[in-house]
């Protein structure tokens, strides 16, 4: 399989929270049009990596390049303007604003140029959101908030979508819906997706490639199927069976 051009490259990145080192030299690549999954146990540093890519916190050493440009030292909003959208850990939707206003915020990069069309697209993916269009974000259920968080990220028309545990706390049916939606976006719109997941089985089946992170380092990488076969992965993240 010939690899297309690399969209995101992370090289030797270390990140500190004060004196605590959360990332100890991370290397990974995401190619254009690819779905890449990152799995690892709690506290491994997955969310930290995702936030570091977005510039908050900044990497202390190493480099992050996106679309051939160095973004390691850029401010978060400048990175976002390069069409890197994120559904962060904890969803972080705007609680007092309505569903529609949340989506509107996602579209602020284009000054709402494609707002009507893009919101229809999000509602096609998540019809539940359309039913709750004028409900305040904070009163949505956890799953609906997750949908809104992903929908808001999509409103920015991203080239690279970063998803931090989109399946967290969701019913299996909804998880499948969300994963189907990601697959569809990837196939039909060539959206590049970097996804952090606890739900390793689903994530690795969804992804073209995957990485395993342990203690702030990438310890394994490969295609999704390869990783699913590995006994270490099965033992640590799949308990030897399906989920």
């Amino acid at each position, binding site marked *: 399989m010939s690899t297309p051009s690399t969209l995101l490259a992370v090289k030797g990145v270390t990140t500190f929270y004060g004196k605590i080192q959360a990332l100890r030299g991370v290397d990974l690549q995401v190619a254009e049009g690819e779905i890449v999954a990152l799995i690892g146990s709690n506290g491994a540093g997955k969310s930290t990596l995702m936030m570091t890519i977005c510039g908050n916190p900044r990497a202390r050493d190493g480099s992050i390049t996106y679309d051939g440009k160095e973004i390691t030292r850029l401010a978060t909003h400048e990175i*976002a303007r390069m069409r890197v*959208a994120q559904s962060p850990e904890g969803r972080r939707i705007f*609680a*007092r604003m309505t569903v529609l*206003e949340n989506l*509107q915020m996602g579209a*602020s990069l284009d000054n*709402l*140029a494609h707002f009507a069309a893009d919101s229809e697209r999000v509602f096609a993916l998540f019809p539940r959101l359309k039913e709750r269009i004028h409900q305040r974000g904070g009163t949505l259920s956890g799953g609906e908030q997750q949908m809104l968080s992903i929908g808001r990220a999509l409103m*920015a028309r991203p080239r690279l979508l970063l998803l931090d545990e989109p399946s967290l706390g969701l019913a299996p049916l909804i998880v499948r819906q969300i994963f189907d939606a990601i697959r569809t976006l990837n196939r039909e719109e060539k959206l590049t997706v970097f996804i952090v997941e606890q739900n390793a089985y689903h994530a690795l089946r969804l992804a073209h490639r995957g990485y395993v992170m342990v203690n702030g380092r990438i310890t394994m990488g490969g295609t999704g199927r390869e990783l699913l076969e590995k006994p270490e992965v099965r033992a640590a993240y799949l308990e030897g069976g399906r989920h």
Partner: protein
Amino acid sequence: MNSPSDSLAPTLDTQPEGEQLQNEERIAAAPGEIAPPSPRGDLAWSAKEALIAGVVALGMFTPMIGLLTDQNINNEVILVTRWPLLAAVVIACAAGRFAIAYFIRPYLAAKRAAPSRPVARPAWRATVSRWFPVVGTILLVFFPAIVLYTSGIAGSIKWVDNFGVQILIYVMLGWGLNVVVGLAGLLDLGYVAFYAVGAYAYALLATHLGLSFWLLLPLAGLLAACWGVALGFPVLRLRGDYLAIVTLAFGEIVHLVLLNWKEVTGGGAGILSIPKIGLPAIHIESYVSLFGMTLPKFAFFNIKFDASPEGFAHLFGLPVSSAYYKIFLYYLILILAFITAFATARMRKLPVGRAWESMREDEIACRSLGINTVTTKLTAFAIGAMFGGFAGSFFAARQGSVFPDSFTFIESVFIVAIVVLGGMGSMIGVAVAATVMIGGVELLRELTFLKQIFGPDFNPTQYRMLIFGFAMVVIMLWRPRGFVQTRTPTVFLFKRKAISADMVQEGHG
């Protein structure tokens, strides 16, 4: 004895006064409906609570109320005791605690436990919230006329100036601070600094350079906005309580500078005889010929509100009175306040306003959506400060003099209290809160009959902070999130699709 309205109160309080009567009649007519007895608390427990409250009050108020140091004729310090007053206060505390424990708490508990009818925002509320701004605006516009009609020219001065203008200044300040606190979510306890900058900018430039108010008003706003940015820069990384402390310090610094920089500000003596505002007018000064055409050359001038032959009264053939100036000031501050309101309402729907609100909700998410939170914060501070500066220059012109003591921390507290009581972010709420709090304090002056009860030395205005504080506690208990608790969304799609296209164009300017 239980009156029917007593026991029905829990379900009726969501309905309008008018409907209440009908309901009572209907329920009274319904056969077999027995009003349940009013709930009562545990008598022994309530008595014990009352006793504890009494003891605590005795311990606390003995040094505060029971004992008083005074000076006798020989300038010696003597100890005066006020046991009857102390006894009255202690008994009042105990009785109050008993009433709460025995009557109020069980009542509230029963009210909470009562199966609440699913009343989702009754229809009359929607009507009120739809029409309140309209009716309020009409009332405000006709307020001077109403007052003139009811109390005559001389009598109107007090109402227009002390009530109208005074309240509207605080409405405007509240609306200005609302941008910073309510929309952007930045707790600013030093807002009075910008008010002061506006006031001193007008006072200094008008007295030294003799510039007109109409020129200095925008200048004062601009200056205040610059100070807003100056405050904004150092506090960019601060949030919540830390931000509040730094802004508080900023307000104090400005106050101290005004007090101590005597060469410029006049120190505690302030700046006196600040020029009044004139009514702007145009007249044709001369004619100039341009390309063969004769064109009028206009000149701007101000009609002064004084007794001179060119003054307002003479010009319009009216009897000389200061009431015209007050009414003029009233309309001026009304217009300024409305400009603030319209500008804020408009900005909420523009990208900058949406950025403010999303920053208030979640700064990190806001940044990851491509919003520059640095400029967002600075614009919030600048715009809020600008409105404060406008209000300040108006204040200086209206007073005719400015003193540093008009710009103390307590003013900031008043303004923040108005925004919080109004329900952060709601402009109607802020206006209502300003009217209640400032109007209430002004009304205290009217309560002269209290002198007959408490003696001629009684001055109700001395109790304004006490009453202000008490009112705040009551309002916050009654409506914990302010008068207007709902936030109006800025976008409704699928009803009027035109909105989004409309906003795109405005967004690009």
